[in-house]
Every structure is written in structure tokens, then in C-alpha cells.
């Protein structure tokens, strides 16, 4: 009797496990689109006037992304999965009817000062309406003084705004494993200040990824050689960026007006 009971119990338990696994698998499998993005992190009190007029009057938007290693992904298909390309797709989906073009200029290990020296050419080649400028990590890595970093950043933003483009500053990735070796907080502070002083929205990638890690959306502490998590993170960053652009340029309102 006892034996039978235990066998029955084992079966029941096994069945329960299988059911649970199937259910979990069914839930976990597809939705790579689901990104947990808190509204407060993609809201902006600062407008993107140039983006608004481009979409409203010309139904097009040329975006240039300037950044370092963390704006790209390695591998032959890296560019396709990195956030600039994901932003392109996300904006196309949300602003159907407008011509969206995202051009990425990603150069690993470039300090902000180096990016500024190449900026004139990029601006005259691309003639973007919006520049997304990711900076800070390379400077923290090479120990650029925060004050010098601030000066370069300021100069670059001035140059972009001088070329009649809007600009969004993007800060570093949240990287829990390297946190004890690489302190990015001083650089993040500088970016916040420059963004505020120059009236440019800040895309707070640091806070967003920190949130994901806290919420368990992504386990950013995990060690892996595979690309799937990195791709999903970049996809979500692209989507979050798209939301921030739409919010800051008030494009939802535009779309409602045009569809009416």
C-alpha cells in the first residue's frame, strides 16, 4: 500500500511538473517584444522641435546614432540586432507613413573628445534631424577627467544644435559585474548636467538597465557567450528610445491629427 501510494504520489508530482514546465515554456517562449519599460524613464520634459516638424511637414526622419562599443553588437549580424537598427524598426512600426532612416556611426573605444573631432563630417554627410549621442563609457574606461568629459560633451552638443538638429544624449550601460572596477557615476552625473543645461533629453540607459536587472527582466549579472540576451536587451533599448522620441516630439498627437 505504502509503495503504491508513493508511486502514485511520484506520478502526480511528475505530471504536475510537466504541466508546470509546459505552461512556463508556453509563457516564456515568444514575447521578445514585451519590454518592461517604466513610463517615467522615457518621458521627457524637453521637446524635440526639429523631429516634430520633419514628421509633420515632410513625413520623414533622419536619425544619426554616434556611439562607442556599447552601441553595437559583435558578430557578422551584429548591426542588425543592435539598438540603432532596432530603433529604426520600432519607429517604422509606430510612425507608419513616415520615412525613417537611422544611420549608426559606432567606433569602439572612442572617447568623447575623439567623437567630437569627427562630428562635423558626420553632421554634414548625414544631415540628420536628430542625433542620438551615446557617450561616457569609453571616457570612464580611459580615465578621462570628468571635467574634460563635460567640456567635450558640451562642445559636441553645441555643434549638433548648431547644425539645426535635435539631440538626445544616451548614458552608459548598467553593468553589475564591472561596477566594482569601473565607476561610471561621475560621468553619468556630467551627462545629466549637460543634458539639462543644453536642453537635450537624456536617455537614461543606466537607470533603465538597472531597473531591468532589479525587476528580473534581464539577469545582467549572468555570464554567457550567447547573443540572445544581448540582442533582446538591444531590442528593448531600441523600443524605449522610440518611445522617448515619440514622447519628446509629441508625435502621438501628430499621428492622431493626420489619421482624423
Amino acid at each position, binding site marked *: 500500500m505504502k509503495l503504491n501510494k508513493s508511486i502514485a504520489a511520484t506520478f502526480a508530482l511528475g505530471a504536475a511538473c510537466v504541466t508546470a514546465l509546459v505552461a512556463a515554456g508556453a509563457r516564456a517562449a515568444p514575447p521578445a517584444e514585451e519590454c518592461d519599460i517604466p513610463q517615467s524613464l522615457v518621458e521627457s520634459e524637453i521637446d524635440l522641435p526639429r523631429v516634430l516638424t520633419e514628421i509633420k511637414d515632410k513625413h520623414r526622419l533622419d536619425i544619426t546614432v554616434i556611439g562607442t562599443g*556599447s552601441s553595437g553588437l559583435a558578430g557578422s549580424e551584429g548591426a542588425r540586432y543592435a539598438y540603432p537598427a532596432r530603433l529604426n524598426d520600432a519607429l517604422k512600426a509606430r510612425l507608419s507613413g513616415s520615412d525613417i532612416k537611422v544611420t549608426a556611426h559606432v567606433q569602439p573605444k572612442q572617447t568623447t573628445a575623439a567623437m567630437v573631432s569627427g562630428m562635423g563630417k558626420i553632421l554634414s554627410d548625414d544631415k540628420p534631424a536628430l542625433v542620438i549621442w551615446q557617450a561616457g563609457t569609453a571616457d570612464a574606461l580611459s580615465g578621462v577627467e570628468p571635467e574634460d568629459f563635460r567640456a567635450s560633451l558640451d562642445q559636441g552638443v553645441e555643434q549638433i544644435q548648431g547644425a539645426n538638429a535635435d539631440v538626445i544624449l544616451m548614458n552608459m550601460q548598467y553593468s553589475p559585474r564591472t561596477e566594482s572596477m569601473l565607476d561610471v557615476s561621475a560621468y553619468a552625473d556630467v551627462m545629466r548636467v549637460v543634458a539639462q543645461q543644453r536642453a537635450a533629453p537624456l536617455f537614461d540607459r543606466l537607470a533603465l538597465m538597472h531597473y531591468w536587472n532589479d525587476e528580473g527582466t534581464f539577469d545582467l549579472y549572468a555570464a554567457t*557567450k550567447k547573443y540572445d540576451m544581448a540582442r533582446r536587451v538591444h531590442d528593448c533599448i531600441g523600443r524605449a528610445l522610440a518611445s522617448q522620441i515619440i514622447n519628446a516630439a509629441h508625435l502621438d498627437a501628430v499621428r492622431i491629427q493626420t489619421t482624423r
Partner: protein
Amino acid sequence: MFAKHMLVRPLAAASAPVLAGTERDLRLDLFRGVALWLIFLDHIPENFLNWFTIRNYGFSDATEIFIFISGYTAAFVYGRAMRERGIVIASARVLRRAWQIYVAHIFLFTIFMAEIAYVAATFDNPLYAEEMNILDFLKQPDITIFQALLLKFKPVNMDVLPLYIVLLLLFPPMLWLLLWQPAFALAGSALVYVLAWNFDWNLPAYPNGVWFFNPFAWQLLFVFGAWCALGGAQRLSPVLRSPAVLAIAIGYLLFAFAITLTWYIEPLQRFVPGWLSDWMYPIDKTNLDVLRFAHFLALAAVTVRFVPRDWPLLKSPLLRPAILCGQHSLEIFCLGVFLAFAGQFIIGEWSGGPLIQAAISLLGILIMIATASLISWYKHMEGRSPGSRVKSPDADLAGGEA
């Protein structure tokens, strides 16, 4: 001999009343102990408890308290040595202290390297290809270790002790000057601070950049602490008693608090006028921004006002743990840095929620207290507990710490 003739007599005459009160000021130990706890908490990035540390409520943080009190106790301990036994003996003691701190720093560096080597060996993630460049230095261990011995390579959170070493190395002549011409010494220190700001003086770091705590700037706080210990505090006391000064100090602390709030609550930023933020930012920690220094002064003024030297609670068992930690600050500081590494590691590895964070923080502080008690017991056993000046009156007055 030359030194004794030159110095001791006039100095003894000049500063005798000042150093007469040799009763240990427990407030120093208390606040240094608290500062050590706060530094420990601040060094664990993933820790909700560091919302309670003072850096979130104003411009300055525990580092200012630590450096100021260190300057104060250094002058207190070695100032008397210099007066009583001459410049050579006192200088030798200061340099021995610098050497001890150097050894402690290298010990911590070894632990840090072990942690980094572990991370490098186990961590890989294409998402962080860029950030992993920070481990490049492991490819050249010969250069890295050599640069660490030269105090040029300093991992995150290991910047305070090198600053302390440099400050102590330069302390003997400064102490001599402080005893001889305190006002002149303080003015000289302020001049170096101003020159460092104007000409961007700092020491070089490896692989590039400069020291996170610029010794040319931070020396001001250390020397100011020393100046206070050698009679400056008494000279300042009429000023500190004035209600106007108290009002200004409280006003400034409130202002700093309001500004700090805007860092964390974004919608408040619109209330900070553009001219103010243009003028104010960045508030530079590396070069001990004037706003930070002023914030520390305000904090100190208010504290001194409300916590008198004979405050009864100072003798209560409630504050005893903090005082004990403050009395053995070098050991407890090093332990704190190590515990912060370890705590951060545990929180990261087992992804700790707030409960784990609180437990680790609390446990860390308990370990610090237990260690301080143990050291105290050792010293007591050897008959040189702080305060009981049995044989050498000064060597370990500050728990051996200056």
C-alpha cells in the same frame, strides 16, 4: 639637537595652553567611527541602505569627515610628540605611520586583484564587450602591480588610503609650520589649494588620468583639521557660538539638501535657475569643490554646537561601538573596504533583495565593531589602550591612528 633648540622652546610657549586639554575628545572617535560605517555602506553600490548616508542629503560625504578628523588627530598626536621630543622623533613617527598605511593599502590591493581575477576568469557576456575592456590591465600584471606599488594604479574605492599616505608624507614640515606659525601654515595650505585649482595640479594615475582624490586640494581639509587641533578650534569657538553663524550654517545645509533633492527627483530640477546651475555645477569631488568644503564646515559647525565635548551620551554604551571603530580607524577602514568588496560580491552573485542587503550591511558593521573591540582588547592587554597613557603618551593615543 638643532631642531630642539630651534623649535621646542618657542613652540612650547606658544602652544602650551592649546594642548593643555589632553583629555581625549570622544566626539572625534564617534564621528570618525560613523564616517567609517558610512564609507562602508557607500562602497556597496547595490544597497538600499546607502540612501541613508549623508552624501544623499548634501554636497559633502563621509570622506570629508574622515580626512578632517584624521588631520585633527594627526596634529593632536604628533604635535605633542614634536613639542616634547623634537622634530626628528615626531617626523619619524609620522613616516612610520605612513608606511603602515602603505602596507595596509597593498594588502587590500591583493584582495582586490583576487576578486578581479575571478571576475575575469568567469565572466563573459557579449552585451558588455566594451565594459570588459576594464580587465585589460590583467594582460600586463607586471606593469599593473608595479604601478600599484607606486600608488598610481588604484582600483575603485581604493583612493582614500593613497591620499592619506601622501598627506602624512608631507605632514612633518607642515606640522612644524603649524606649531610655529599656525595662521601662516593655514594660509599656505589654502594657497596650495587655490593654485591647484588654477593650474590643474594633481598627481598622475595609471593607466591614465589623475588621482581621484587630488592631494593638492584635499590637503586643505587635512591641514584645517590639524590647525583646529592645535588651537584653531579654540580660536574659532567665539565664531561658532554666534547665532548668525549657526543660522548661516543651517541655511546652507538646507540649501544643499534642496539641491540634492533635485538630483533624485527630476521634476524639481526646473526650480533650479539656469545661472545657479551654470555657476554651481559640476560639484567636483576630485578637487574638493568649495561647495563641498563649505558644506563640511557647516555640518561641523552645527555638530559642534549641538554635541558638546562633555555630551553625556558620549560615555553611554549606545555610542560605544562607533567610538571603538573610530579609535582604530586604519584597521576598520581597511576591513570596511574588504567587507564592501565581499558584500557586493555576495549581493551580485546571489542577487540580493533589500533583506539580503540590509543583512549584509548590518553584518558588516557588526564585524567592524567586533574587530575594533578585539583590537582594543589586544591593546589593553599590552597596556596601551587609548586614553590610558601609561608609557609612550602619544604613540597610540588615537588608537595608533593619526
